[in-house]
């Protein structure tokens, strides 16, 4: 009994020892910033002079600002596009590649490639493609006689946000790889049995693959929505929130407040991004059920 107790104490020491570095990092780089940002969101601060407490003044300012409201709306559109466009596309490609057609490894690499290319470089490439004067898209439209369809894709109110979202679909490879890994881990015998029973490819995918990788799809969807909620770089690099304040997202709005040395407003925006993230991701879990990466792996 004494032996057991001393062994347990020794284990506890090791547990504490191993958890301490992670705990310190968690407190320093996660907990402390969140607490600081939350406190700062109730302050007026230009980054140089002392802070002053202003209650909910920053939040009141944000909700009175139409650009901020547009930013929330755009973040929601980005999140929806991730859930309804990016994941289904990634799923379809993963299901096709999982059948291992000729050259599937090559296509898997091609689809994943954008994820290892600098986001700035890709943004520049897309900006050039969309350019109305010398961009490839308008050039192709002109070549096929569709001159009337040429646009200033990033400079017109109707097309700017869709153009941004379209350009972002290049990242489907990331989710495709996650889903593909799950799909390839399904035992082949399931499909063989289904074929003996006369199930066609579509039926196999619907009745075997999709239920088997449901957890993985939810995980990928959650990640895609989380990425969309923290969207910043693509918008910043390609439209900077324009034209006419039609494409800003909350991350960009926060950045601008920092550039204007209104750190309290920036912090309040940050707090609302966190709140929105918690609300959206909780709602996703509630609707689609729990998706646990470890659980997925066990499947």
């Amino acid at each position, binding site marked *: 009994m004494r032996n057991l107790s001393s062994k347990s104490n020794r284990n506890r020491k090791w547990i504490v020892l191993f958890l301490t570095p992670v705990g310190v990092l968690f407190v320093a780089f996660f907990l402390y910033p969140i607490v600081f940002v939350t406190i700062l969101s109730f302050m007026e601060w*230009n*980054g*140089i*002079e002392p802070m002053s407490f202003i209650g909910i003044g920053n939040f009141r300012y944000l909700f009175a600002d139409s*650009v901020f409201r547009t930013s929330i709306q755009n973040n929601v559109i980005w999140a929806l596009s991730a859930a309804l466009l990016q994941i289904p596309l990634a799923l379809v490609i993963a299901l096709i590649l999982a059948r291992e057609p000729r050259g599937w490894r090559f296509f898997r690499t091609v689809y994943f490639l954008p994820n290892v290319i600098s986001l700035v470089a890709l943004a520049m490439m897309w900006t050039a493609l969309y*350019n*109305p*004067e010398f961009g490839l898209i308008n050039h192709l439209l002109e070549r096929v006689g569709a001159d009337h369809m040429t646009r*200033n894709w*990033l*400079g*017109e*109110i109707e097309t*700017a946000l869709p153009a941004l979202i379209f350009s972002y679909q290049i990242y489907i490879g990331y989710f495709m790889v996650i889903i593909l890994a799950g799909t390839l881990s399904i035992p082949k015998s399931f499909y063989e049995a289904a074929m003996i029973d006369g199930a066609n490819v579509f039926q196999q995918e619907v009745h075997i693959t999709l239920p088997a990788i449901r957890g993985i799809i939810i995980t990928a969807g959650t990640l895609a929505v989380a990425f969309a909620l923290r969207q910043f770089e693509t918008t910043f690099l390609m*439209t*900077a*929130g*324009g*034209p*006419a*304040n039609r494409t800003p997202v909350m991350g960009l709005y926060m950045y*601008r407040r*920092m*550039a*204007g*040395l*209104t*750190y309290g407003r920036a912090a309040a925006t940050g707090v609302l991004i966190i709140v929105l993230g918690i609300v959206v991701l909780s709602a996703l879990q509630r609707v689609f059920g729990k998706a646990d990466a470890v659980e997925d792996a066990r499947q």
Partner: protein
Amino acid sequence: MRRNLLLGLLVVALLAFSVSTLFAGAQREAAEREIVLTWPSIWVGQDSKADVMEEIVNEFNQQHAGRIRVVVEPQPDYDGYEDTIRTRLAARRPPDIFTFKLSPTTAVYYSGDLLMDFSADLGRDGWGDTFNQGNLNASTMGGATKSLPYEIGFTPIWYNTELFARAGIDRFPQTMDEFWEACEKLKAIGVVPTSQMTGGTNSWTSMLWYTHFLGSYGGPDVWERAWDDRAFEQAAAIIKRLYSDGNTTRDAIGADAGVSSGHYMNERTAMFINGAWFIGRIRDDAPDVYRATELAPAPKAGNYHGHQVGWLHTNLAAAHTDDPARREAVVTFMRHLTSPENAKRVSLAAGSLLAVEFELGPQDQLDPLQAKFIEAGNQAEFLIDHMEASMPVDVVYELGQALGSMVLEDRSPREFVQMLQAAEN
């Protein structure tokens, strides 16, 4: 037990070794007494001042070898550079040496004791006399000169005389009627009249066009007026027209400075605005356009004419320090960098206009376009600051959005001004 003891001794020995090494290093550093100053600099890479700046810093390091060493941290992205400086100041860790654009927003950097005050040093040995006194005064607040004026922004209208001649225009328009007539003639030969842009952080080219016309309507003190002054609206009406009827390129909404200048260098547009720092770039990348370029003030739109847009473009600053030796090292470097000889080198090599005054000798080869800049500056009736130097950052950011809204949603110039005003609050 013995193994644990040995392990413990090993750890103690390792610690002792590390501490002694550190101690020895610190002693050696103290003995050498070399002061290292870090300078995150934007004048690197493709910047027209990069080469000459590198030479100047290297020469300084050689002259002060073993005592002072300036280490340049290259940061070629302008917006990123400003972000870095802002963040480091907020974290109360300013770089030893850095540059910034003095504006109503950045003027707050002068608060507290973050920046070094050069006012006492400027009085020594006539150092302060080498600067343009107007620029020096503009950099002095409450008696403290916490940054040194360095580069001056001066942005007349650039126009391509060959394209003008081809369109049958023999001189730069003096009135708005002449200006619109010239635009029509240029369009008739397939040339887009002006480069414009709403992208970037400040809608650079269009901000300068707007400021030119604002000066014509409001005169030298226009930035001191309230937003309901008619001048803001009248200048906006001209900008709206410049964005319409093919008076600018199709990609102007959303375009950045690279696109805007690219059109001028490719002869797609006939008029463009930028500063003298662009001379090096156009001379190298578009020599024909460089040779065809002349400079002019904006046509007369209101009661004023012949003015130019000119302001303090870049100020040099340093972190405040209580260490007298470090302080002296910073001042020594600043004096080296802003000496008339080095200012002349920078100016001649890069085409920049500087706040440091220097004499040109007969052997000095002044760039022809730079000479035109100087001439345009001398002939200017008055100078006005551009919007970025006169308004908070939030207003400058909003300019591109307000322009987009006015053009794409057909908002009135009054509504355009209201958007800017709202951004200020």
